[in-house]
């Protein structure tokens, strides 16, 4: 059998399984959308008066806070989705269905990347539905932005998914997942440029400014923000790509039976 064909069929199999599961779990879809929409309709509306946004790239004019926060909320969807995927990996491992993936005759790195792509595909679906709702709320980036944002979403989704994958190689039980919420999702989201621009953060705290600047989530949000307005942020791209490679490599080691998770379980 053609090896490339085998790889393609396997990858498509993993992605379609994730999509089947996603469409079966409607509550997950609704929850994934409700969260950013509440931020947009309630939090952002309340902050509109309190927070003035100066003209900063990629924006060429004064913007409403809702417009500023939209890329951050897209990042939030992908961040939660990445963590959700990692939760489902821990669940799959506890329930055993992960074994079927790991004993299939393909290299483990490829299986993990397929799993990541599958999670990213689901997050991109969620993002476009969110953007559609936002359009009716008068948040309307240029038309080409909807196209340019796609590659940015793939990279940011892969980076956040790889982080989730890495975490799932460490987390042994579902119960430990609550810790991920407190120690990963919230700090990552709040110390980023999702809610406030960097210069605004710098005004209040230098430490927070440094943290936000080097937070990979900030760079993913900036990559999305620029792409949505048809611009390419090279630094954000390189930083997000580097973070993806780092997390991915660590996750592959984590899932290697000779070196990672299995080793910690014990090995002769």
């Amino acid at each position: 059998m053609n090896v490339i064909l085998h790889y393609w069929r396997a990858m498509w199999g993993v992605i379609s399984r994730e999509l089947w599961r996603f469409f079966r779990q409607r509550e997950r879809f609704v929850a994934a959308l409700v969260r950013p929409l509440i931020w947009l309709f309630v939090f952002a509306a309340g902050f509109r008066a309190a927070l003035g946004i100066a003209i900063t790239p990629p924006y060429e004019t004064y913007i409403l806070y809702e417009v500023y926060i939209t890329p951050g909320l897209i990042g939030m969807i992908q961040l939660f989705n990445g963590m959700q995927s990692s939760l489902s990996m821990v669940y799959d491992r506890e329930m055993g269905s992960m074994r079927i993936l790991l004993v299939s005759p393909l290299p483990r790195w490829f299986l993990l990347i397929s799993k990541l792509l599958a999670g990213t595909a689901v997050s991109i679906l969620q993002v476009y539905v969110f953007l559609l709702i936002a359009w009716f709320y008068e948040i309307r980036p240029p038309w080409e932005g909807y196209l340019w944002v796609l590659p940015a979403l793939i990279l940011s989704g892969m980076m956040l998914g790889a982080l989730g994958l890495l975490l799932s190689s460490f987390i042994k039980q579902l119960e430990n997942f609550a810790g991920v919420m407190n120690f990963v999702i919230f700090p990552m989201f709040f110390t980023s440029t999702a809610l406030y621009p960097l210069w605004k953060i710098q005004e209040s705290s230098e430490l927070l400014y440094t943290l936000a600047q080097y937070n990979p989530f900030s760079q993913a949000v900036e990559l999305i923000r620029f792409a949505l307005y048809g611009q390419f942020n090279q630094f954000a791209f390189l930083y997000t790509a580097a973070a993806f490679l780092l997390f991915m490599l660590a996750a592959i080691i984590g899932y290697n039976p000779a070196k990672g998770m299995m080793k910690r379980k014990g090995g002769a």
Partner: protein
Amino acid sequence: MNFVTALKITDLSFSYGSKKALDQVGFSIDQGQCTILLGPNGAGKTTLFALITRLYDSRSGTIELCGFDIKKQTRQALAKLGVVFQQTTLDLDLTVLQNLRYHCALHGMSRKLANSRIREELERLNMFERRFERIRQLNGGHRRRVEIARALLHRPAILLLDEPTVGLDVPSRKAIVEHVHQLALQNDMAVLWASHLIDEIYPSDHLIILHQGSIRAKGKVDEVLAATHSESIDAAFHKLTRGAPE
């Protein structure tokens, strides 16, 4: 190439920290041979399966599937293997058909080939009519049948079953035991069946008795009986695993 020895394990050891789970385990299984791996709880059966499927890795000893070393030629070796794990590994929210198609995709099968194999395997187990049902709607016996059908879709040379009848009622257990024995005979498949239930053993089977991580006896049923001077497998098993937890 014609492989007579489907599974060959040599000097395999594995520890969980300082606790030895397997100690110098070695045996081989030929094609068409049904081997029952018998051992009390905690004997090391599940660890052995995790090593054969490369979920765990061991530094000492070798595992060969149809001549392929599981560490060096992992993909070729895993392609020869069909597995039914002790715990169900089906996706409960998906249908029978979706679960089986997922497995076929992982083995690189075309949609056409997958459909014909799925039909064949499900019909053999009288499950074809249930292909659109979600796994959650099936009872334990039917779920097991789906798992066995799935393990056979890619035509493996070796079938591993880790206590597949746990929690099933007597008729379901009997049906699965019979089906697997037929598979070994008709398809010339090597079967390694981990169990702690003596009534699942046929007189023609081979036996491996594992206790506290090491092999206490191996051979055909009558050879093990003769070696242990026992009249029944039950008696032989108790002699060899004295002091084991019930």
